């Protein structure tokens, strides 16, 4: 029985990891990669919001966040720097899942706890926190199939909107979609939206203009663009499995689009820190933690609860995991302006 399984749920079949307890307070760092998109900014905000909470602040001697851009060597250097500076725990969003062998061994030697999240590593050496990409995209597929069943329709032709080429997240999510749909003999048309609203809108518009009508859409990210394209093309309303951006739910609600919005929550940055502290305190955790995926179907969207007319459309609704800790209020996140850190 590992530590707080309701939050740190093990990936089926994963091993467990435990280190000798260390005395706090701890020096923690979060080494982000690219900073220039809303999800990452929110991940940083969540991390700082978590660190600011009194129950955590007491355990922390120092908490640093750096963003190093899309460069594995720079990220490795950053992590090494924190190891060299005697930090106890380091969380990071890996720029490259296979680049960190060396760092992991150096961290071991220095007794520093590493906790990758979001883009995780192909390794069983460290505890990793993430939502299962398969489960995430699977949930979207299920949502669409359920909606179709409810409407008494057979899935024949589904549009898949993929993400940024060349990384494992995009690959795994796409595999999930194909694994779920191909057995049903569904025709899958794939376009590449780069996780980008505008790009998705363009490629979906083209797909609709050339491939004709679809029975449903599975979109990795930038789903708002996908919906805009459907509306612009006057395409009959079809179920959508989309991302967890505020704008997506607003659109689905407004136009009564059935389907599911599955959140890939930036708040996982906070869970990763929580895990780091748990490990430093000597607790045993699953090597691969799979967080529960916050999903909601159109019918359950409630303004001010899991959808905010008052917030930006690009706001990601992953404000927290109730199973782990009280979810962040948007104010709590926004409160983290760079001026009062």
């Amino acid at each position: 029985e590992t530590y707080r399984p309701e939050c740190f749920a093990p990936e089926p079949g994963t091993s467990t990891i435990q280190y000798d307890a260390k005395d706090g307070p701890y020096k923690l760092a979060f080494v982000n990669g690219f900073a220039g998109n809303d999800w990452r900014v929110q991940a940083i905000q969540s991390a700082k919001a978590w660190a600011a909470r009194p129950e955590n602040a007491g355990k922390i001697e120092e908490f640093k966040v750096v963003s190093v851009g899309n460069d594995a060597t720079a990220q490795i250097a950053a992590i090494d720097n924190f190891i060299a500076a005697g930090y106890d725990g380091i969380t990071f969003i890996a720029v490259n899942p296979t680049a960190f062998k060396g760092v992991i061994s150096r961290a071991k030697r220095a007794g520093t706890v590493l906790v990758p999240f979001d883009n995780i590593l192909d390794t069983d050496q460290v505890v990793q926190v993430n939502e299962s990409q398969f489960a995430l995209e699977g949930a979207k597929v299920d949502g669409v199939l359920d909606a179709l069943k409810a409407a008494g329709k057979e899935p024949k032709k589904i549009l898949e909107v993929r993400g940024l080429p060349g990384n494992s997240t995009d690959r795994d999510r796409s595999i999930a979609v194909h694994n779920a749909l191909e057995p049903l003999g569904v025709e899958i048309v794939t376009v590449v939206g780069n996780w980008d609203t505008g790009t998705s809108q363009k490629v979906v518009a083209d797909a609709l203009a050339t491939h004709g009508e679809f029975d449903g859409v599975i979109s990795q990210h930038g789903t708002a663009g996908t919906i805009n394209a459907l509306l612009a093309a006057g395409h009959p309303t079809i179920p959508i499995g989309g991302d967890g951006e505020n704008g997506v739910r607003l659109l689905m609600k407004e136009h009564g689009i059935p389907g599911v919005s599955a959140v890939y929550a930036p708040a996982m940055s906070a869970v990763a820190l929580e895990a780091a502290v748990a490990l430093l305190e000597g607790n045993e955790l699953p090597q691969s933690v799979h967080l529960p995926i916050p999903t909601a179907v159109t019918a359950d969207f409630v303004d001010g609860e899991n959808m905010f007319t008052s917030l930006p459309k690009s706001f990601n609704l992953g404000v927290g995991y109730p199973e782990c800790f009280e979810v962040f209020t948007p104010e709590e996140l926004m409160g983290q302006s760079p001026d009062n850190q």
Partner: protein
Amino acid sequence: MMGFAKRHADPLIPLIGCVLLIGFGALFFPKFLTATYLLQQVQIAAFLGVIATGAMVVILLGQIDLSIPWTLGGAAIISTAMAASGHTALEVLAIPAGLGFGLLVGVINGVGVAVFRIPAMVWTLSVNAMLLGLAVINTGGFNPKGEASGLMIAVATKTTLGIPNAALLWLAYGAGVLWLFRRTTFGRALFAIGNSEKASFLSGVNTTRVIFAAFALAGFSSALGGLLLAGYANQAYQSMGDPYLLPAIAAVVIGGTSILGGRGSYAGTVAGTLFVTLLTSVLSVFQIDPAWRQILFGAIIVAMLLTQRRRIM
């Protein structure tokens, strides 16, 4: 006479390319020939076209503007934020403010290039980096709710007599730029400086001012593109400009504009824009694997440039 011939041959090759692409596409997807698809391409091309216009002005100087992405994004963020602010005054100023932001960035670029004599390629790069930083601060700090204004949406997504408004705007904007090129001091000086800044300066041309104006116009174009995209996606988000930098430059050079400056025709840029847009669309519709998409894109551009060369020589 020669110059005339050149000016009018520029758009030829990209246009032929467009026809080939459509023809090829139609073999497999008859819908390629429908007005829906074609008008849709024109609409999407309009966004790139406006941005490429600015890129072209700077390239005519023999410079290059790498600050397009975050100038575009910044303008969109500002306008959408103001449009959704709820204060009438701010809402009215939403669009001017976004465009003004573009002008401002352009002038900052101009200072580095014209006064400090820093290669635009590097100066605009660092300006872009700073803009990214500002966007991050903004999103983290205040990040107000953003909403494209009705006008932005109407221009970006609606049509008039079946023609996308975006395309009409592009047409008007292009006409204005063409007038600048052909009929004003600015236009003549722009081409002269692109060929020889020294000789232009010694002829009494106010080169500094022209360079400022050129970058200001480029920033304005990026901002205008940003507002269009915000209207199209009905929101602003970070890094929304990233997918437009290289295509914009590609569109300009495919259109026969010399990257060294001083030579080029707007018609060429228009044709180049249409070609790039169509090519991207075709590669996407045919579900080409991303790797092959990159390879084909590069190979086709090389091929086009080689043919352009042949013609010029």
